[in-house]
């Protein structure tokens, strides 16, 4: 309506918006976002299913895996592979034992991790011993960083049916 009037009158009034105020506000928002911007760190995770604490048979007394006669709620059956990780006082590994056999003495390095990996592969490949979970007996002072290296090796393993090992439980081990 008003346009028609303008056209009729022949006068074109220019309406100019004052953008300066809007620009100020936009700059303030921009400054806020730039100052609070923190790129998220590249983090990964290892998913675990941690069953509730439960008594486990001593490896010396472990029964055959096919024995299904254990009492409900009693000690875990023999399909639990026990890895004992002794720690030195400085948070490093001092020795590792897989089952009953000692694997090595000394701190973890690339070679020893590969050794552990090979050993676990061999253990999980044994037919008639369908291990389905790993119990880590960990020294009190072992650092989280060292523990994660060992958990990483364990979660890479596959069980007899081909599913990855993700049932890992922890038990605290007294320092020697």
């Amino acid at each position, binding site marked *: 309506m008003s346009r028609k009037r303008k056209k009729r009158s022949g006068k074109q009034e220019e309406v*100019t918006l004052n953008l300066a105020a809007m620009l100020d506000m936009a700059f303030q928002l921009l400054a806020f976002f730039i100052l609070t911007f923190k790129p998220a760190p590249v983090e990964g995770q290892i998913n675990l299913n941690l069953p509730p604490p439960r008594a486990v048979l001593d490896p010396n007394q472990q029964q055959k895996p096919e024995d299904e006669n254990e009492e409900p709620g009693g000690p875990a059956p023999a399909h639990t592979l026990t890895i004992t990780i002794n*720690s030195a006082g400085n948070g490093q590994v001092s020795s590792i034992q897989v089952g009953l056999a000692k694997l090595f003495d000394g701190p973890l390095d690339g070679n020893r991790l590969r050794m552990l990996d090979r050993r676990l592969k061999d253990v999980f490949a044994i037919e008639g011993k369908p291990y389905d979970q790993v119990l880590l007996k960990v020294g009190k002072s072992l650092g989280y960083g060292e523990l*994660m290296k060992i958990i990483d090796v364990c979660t*890479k393993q596959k069980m007899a049916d081909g599913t990855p090992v993700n049932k890992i439980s*922890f038990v605290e081990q007294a320092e020697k």
Partner: protein
Amino acid sequence: MSASLHSSENAEPNLTPMLDMVFQLVTFFMLVINFQAASLDMSLKLPVIGSARPADKGAEELLVLNVNKNGKVMMYGNEQDPAAFVKNEGKEARFKLELSGKKVKKGEELPTLVVVRADLGTPFELLNKVLTECQNEGFRKFALRAMSKAEGS
């Protein structure tokens, strides 16, 4: 000459392209802002594990525990006692489930995924206390966080 001088008095810069650009930048920063990162304590040094899988970004309920070298839970820069903190979180998780019509007793399995971000120097003794507290409350699903690659590489 006088006419050109007169017109320069009214000269105004065209702010529209600048405003467009600024709004584009604001939109970009609004889209990339990550409020979840606020719950992560960046003072912790996480171990570097090459094979760690990228974190799931599902709608799953998460409980992030930043555990420092002293075994305390760090929440927005404050140290908190892990036992009390986990107990409260367990209570809250059960209350939420109750609101949605599912009653869960203490110690029964909770669907929440506990994300553990512990410092690489945290002794197992202290970490195990936190994990045991979580298990006693009914948390079963855990995700142990690590850096996929070393910082600066």
